[in-house]
């Protein structure tokens, strides 16, 4: 076939997501003998964490996994968005202007996590952004040199982001860590025997050297500016400060991407997708690895990916060899979770006028009057816009304790034309095998 996309394909194993977990899963399963197709919706493999800037090369660990996937014969489709599974064993995949169907026998979900945004007055101003998004923006050339930046949120990521921004020439005046001193001290005391890497230490060292003010027990309450950000007001619960700045980078944590698990009706836990020891989900022939099973960072994602890859290939013995290391990393993740749990005060940041759903301009006042997520969607259109609730529904899970509404295809926005291409009869004549 000259056009691989106007067709249907068969694969033993389809891996959704080409971040660390997906790459490790795909390479491992292929090394165990499966024919593997790896789909990622972005042009790069490695996920946001391993994405290099323009002209830069991916980190060495990323290169190693890419090489393993390559030599094991993994078929890789970048810029391929899987958007539906209907009938359940047929994936509908958009690739640029083409659409194709992939019949899968086994699937590994490794679609990662997205940033949690918390609404507060002024959070919709230009230059108030997610720390992860800002990092990607800077990597793709957005000039941050000379800009005054405040970093706010929680967790070790704050320090990593601040250190990165400083290296790029930004003036990071303050780091607002919402966790208290005592929580941090507790975390630090356990770090000695739990830490999987030196990330924390290195980042702390860097920021201290650069005289950025690190402020535990502080959080932003308002961002100010007419058409873009001029200043941010933050508090420690009693006092308030206002700091002039050009950019406010927020990192209140990550949230598992649950659209695909939702589409497949995988059982969930409060942390993410439920999996057994072998990373098997409650869905037949579907495994999950990485952040969607609960946030744990890149080291845990790699281990889970390898377990899922081995298990999908029926190599349970090899999978089990990783159990001890996974348990250790999970203990560390649980420790992080406990220490950097979001404080209750953050639920009370939005005022009645604060826009919570940016796509549909829905205010906190309108949402507070609703009984649940479905009522909010119907009566206020909250979450019905172009991001399909990725931002506001996630925030509302924290603010209101609302559970997510059920998921319907497409899993991500696709061209209307891609829906037309999903006709069964039309493409049945042109079936090809995976290479």
């Amino acid at each position, binding site marked *: 076939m000259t056009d691989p996309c106007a067709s249907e394909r068969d694969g033993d194993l389809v891996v959704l997501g080409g971040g660390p977990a997906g790459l490790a899963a795909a390479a491992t399963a292929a090394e165990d003998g499966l024919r593997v197709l790896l789909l990622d919706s972005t042009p790069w493999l490695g996920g946001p964490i391993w994405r290099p800037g323009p002209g830069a090369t991916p980190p060495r660990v990323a290169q190693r996994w890419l090489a393993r996937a390559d030599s094991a014969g993994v078929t890789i489709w970048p810029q391929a968005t899987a958007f539906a599974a209907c009938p359940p064993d047929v994936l*509908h995949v958009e690739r640029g202007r083409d659409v194709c169907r992939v019949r899968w026998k086994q699937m590994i979900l490794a679609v990662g996590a997205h940033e949690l945004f918390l609404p507060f007055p002024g959070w919709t101003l230009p230059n108030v952004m997610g720390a992860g998004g800002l990092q990607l923006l800077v990597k793709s050339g957005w000039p941050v040199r000379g800009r005054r930046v405040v970093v706010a949120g929680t967790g070790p990521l704050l320090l990593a982001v601040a250190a990165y921004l400083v290296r790029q020439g930004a003036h990071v005046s303050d780091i607002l860590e919402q966790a208290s001193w005592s929580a941090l001290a507790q975390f630090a005391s356990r770090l000695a025997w739990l830490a999987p890497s030196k990330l924390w230490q290195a980042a702390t060292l860097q920021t201290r050297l650069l005289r950025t003010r690190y402020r535990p027990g502080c959080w932003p309450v308002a961002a100010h500016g007419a058409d873009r950000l001029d200043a941010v007001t933050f508090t420690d619960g009693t006092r308030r400060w206002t700091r002039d700045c050009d950019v406010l980078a927020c990192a209140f944590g990550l949230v598992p991407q649950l659209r695909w698990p939702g589409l497949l009706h995988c059982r969930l836990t409060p942390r993410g997708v439920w999996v057994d020891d072998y990373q098997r989900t409650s869905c037949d022939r579907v495994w999950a690895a990485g952040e969607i099973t609960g946030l744990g960072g890149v080291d845990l994602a790699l281990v889970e990916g390898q377990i899922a890859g081995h298990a999908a290939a029926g190599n349970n013995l090899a999978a089990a060899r990783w159990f001890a290391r996974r348990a250790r990393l999970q203990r560390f993740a649980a420790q992080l979770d406990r220490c950097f749990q979001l404080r209750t005060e953050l639920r009370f940041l939005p005022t009645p006028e604060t826009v919570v759903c940016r796509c549909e301009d829905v205010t906190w006042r309108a949402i507070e009057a609703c009984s649940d997520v479905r009522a909010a969607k*119907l009566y206020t259109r909250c979450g019905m816009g172009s991001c399909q609730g990725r931002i506001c529904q996630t925030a509302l899970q924290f603010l209101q304790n609302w559970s997510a509404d059920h998921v319907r295809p497409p899993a991500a926005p696709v*061209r209307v034309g891609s829906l037309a291409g999903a006709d069964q009869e039309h493409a049945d004549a042109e079936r090809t095998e995976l290479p």
Partner: protein
Amino acid sequence: MSTRASDIRCEIAIVGGGIVGAACAAEFAAEGCRVVVLERGIAAGEATSAGMGHLVVLDDSPAQLALTVYARRLWHALLPQLPADAEVDVCGTLWVAESDEEMALVERKRDVLAGGGVAAEVLAVDELRRAEPQLRAGLAGGLRVPDDAVIYPPTVTRLLLARAADAGAQLRTRVAVRHVEGDGRVHLADGSRVQADLVLNAAGTGAPALSPAAPIRPRKGHLVITDRYPGWVHHQLIELGYLRSTQAAAGESVAFNIQPRRTGQLLIGSSRQFDAETSDVEMRVVAKMVQRAREYLPGVEALSALRIWTGFRAATPDKLPLIGPSPEQPRVWLAAGHEGLGITTCLATARLLRDRWRGHASEIDAAPYLPQRFTAAGGSLA
């Protein structure tokens, strides 16, 4: 039968908090009746929110024309009072003719509508192109019905219920009705009861569960919504063959039907399926529907699709709603079976029922919508 402390007494118990139940609640409450609305989920949570929100005159039969014309007149009295979140847009309907044969039908449709007092304007090929430049070349023409409109049904339903509440009506959500007796007793799933002088069964596809002889079958539909493209199309666009699709008695059919929302988003429809097993989105049906839309609007392909959903219409064998006494239950009246037209016709349904309750003559002949038409014809309702 003894009454219990937990029992509620009222004049009118309305089962179903969709737009039909809400319209009835507003109408009867405004008359001074003590009204209780019983909704198993949340208001407007089912077919009302799954549909397009098109206020449209249809002429499948003289009775359908009379009902939709009457209803649209009632809507035009209400529309100016609706708040911004009702997303009112009097964009008109543009019926699109594919061929010269269909153009002949356009002329006939214009005359039928004129007979019902409905303004409509035949558009020649070039006028059609000017009115909607996104339509493909080679179409034959169209018929513009300028007074048709679009609303956002969930917020309008809430508004109607708020009006009913202001007039003293009680709304109870998340209460399932288990059983309705012919003498006006309503048994709720929580064990309590409502004793009413009259029960209005406005439960849509759920109506036969309470009035078993009501000849209603669920008819599944799919809709796709896009990102915002303000001004991309200007009218609700429907293929002239649309009524053929609604008439197909069995199986599944699709028709080109696209609606611009006030937000700039586009709703792409429509599909009709009897005997669908689940509410799951079926990509096979979506594909057919989008292919049909593409035949009229080639550019639709490049737009971004955000969401797809399904809903179930309450369909009757003759495409007319069931409005009036249930033949088997003396104190139960039906307000159901509107298929895809409940948004349009709800105000007329409520008015007809109120007139009947008060013993007034109605503005239009209510006979074609009486549920007894099915008993008279064949003895058995189903």
